[in-house]
């Protein structure tokens, strides 16, 4: 994951993302297409999620440092998910959720 991020042009991507929702389109139309095929591999999950964050919360407040911080957080979350996948879970492994059915109304 980190390797993908390191080889990706984060600066250009961040700059494009910083303009808001259109950033994702800018990336796909210019950054990826403009790069040679070997360098044009799909971006990492973390970068795509970062694009989703900016798409969800567009605005003028994003700068590269902040995007980098959020990207690190996303990478951390995805890293934790990888750790979770090291625990064998079966189809019957239920989550420990809070929901419970309501009590039967008393007549």
């Amino acid at each position: 994951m980190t390797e993908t991020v390191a080889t990706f042009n984060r600066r250009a991507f961040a700059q494009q993302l910083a303009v808001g929702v259109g950033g994702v389109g800018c990336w796909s139309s210019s950054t990826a297409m403009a790069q040679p095929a070997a360098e044009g591999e799909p971006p990492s999950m973390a970068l795509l999620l970062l694009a989703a964050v900016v798409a969800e919360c567009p605005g003028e407040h994003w700068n590269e440092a902040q995007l980098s911080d959020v990207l690190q957080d996303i990478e951390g979350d995805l890293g934790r998910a990888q750790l979770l996948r090291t625990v064998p879970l079966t189809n019957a492994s239920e989550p420990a959720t809070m929901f419970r059915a309501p009590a039967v109304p008393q007549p």
Partner: protein
Amino acid sequence: MIAAGDAFLTIDEWGRRLRGGEVTSLALTDFFLARLKTIGTAHNAVVTLTADRAREEARLADADLQRGRDRGPLHGIPYGAKDLLATRGIPTTWGATPFREQVFADDATVIERLRAAGAVLTAKLAMIELAGGFGYRQAHASFTGPALNAWDRSCWAGGSSSGSGIALGAGLVPFAIGSETSGSILNPAGANGVTGFRPTYGLVPRTGAMALSWTLDKIGPLCRTAHDCLTVMRAIAGPDEEDFTAFEVGTTLDAPATLPSPCRMARIAGCLRTVQPEIADRFEAACSVLSQFGTIDEIELPDLPYSAVVGTIITGEMAAAFEDFIRSGQVQELTAPEDRWGGYAGLVLPAKDYINALRVRRKIQTALDPVCQQYDVLLAPTLATVAGPIDRDFREWSRGFASSSLGVAGNAGGLPGITVPMGAGANGLPTGLQLVSGARRDGLLLTIATAYQQRTGWHRQHPERYQS
């Protein structure tokens, strides 16, 4: 006239003075209000002094006692509450600038129960903004300023129940209420050299408390002793119509008259690997005391990703709880720069990752259960270091805060835990011993911690400057 040194008396000791007519609740309340105003303010420990309400409650407590109506051990005893607990007509700020004017119409259930028990609310205490869920990395993460340690104002007081820890450490109240999602009671209690108790998940209702993580949040007391914690717990525990995770107390808070014979204890393997040498020494000394009660084995906790589970759950639930706050841009008004950006990643956390964390959490419960059946209590130092410099990034000094995975495992498993002082570490700052028991064995845990405190005097050591 109440002497400054009396500020560190226990709930029972104040109770005897109140019932013996040596002091009134009103005098006691004014005594602590004055300390909160001066010392508390100097340590950034107080958000709001609730003087009017406190004096009203104290007068009522005094009148009741005169009429022979005694509401129990907390009758007339002042306390402070972490400012994430709603209080009717008084601001509840959650430690965060955007919520400075927030006022609720009702008291939180815990506050209601303490009022019914005769306790006197004297202050809303400082906390890390939004209970620390946004990823703060340094002490200046509350609109009340960095929380300054009770023993040394150049050091951090811990968080997120920062004001509660300071208030006990500096003798500003006889007890306080804090909350823990993962570490927020034990961390400041350990850093300030006081006793802090995290109950079994669901033992204390959260109605009226700010939600950071519905499946992890717990409310618990910080006190002078484990025995005082039991006293407070008996007043605040039990089911609540508004919080369906809160369960019947049953035998959970039963304190056995004698310790199990032999008491079966286990220390966590490797728990001294990263700690400061003074903490290792203090821990060995504490184990030596505990060995009088029974056996102490050394064990490894089941190999499971405790931190990944807790981190993923907090991230997902916090993003849901604060989504509007983040999207609206209000998050940009938080004090710590890193908190202004720390909530965004959670907005895109894959649902299956959150669900998988909850699935692994059940595995954790299943795996920890036999360990907690085999042992009455598990042991490790509370923190890897003593309190660190107030102006430095945590990553420069904290060694990750935890000495082992016991704390995060206990939170993942919903297990009760307590920190008790175990003596001075580096720079004369306090160190803490962490004890964790099986779920719903809170009474046993508090009994063992009480037995430890009956054989040690560390919980009676206080900052010299605040005793005179």
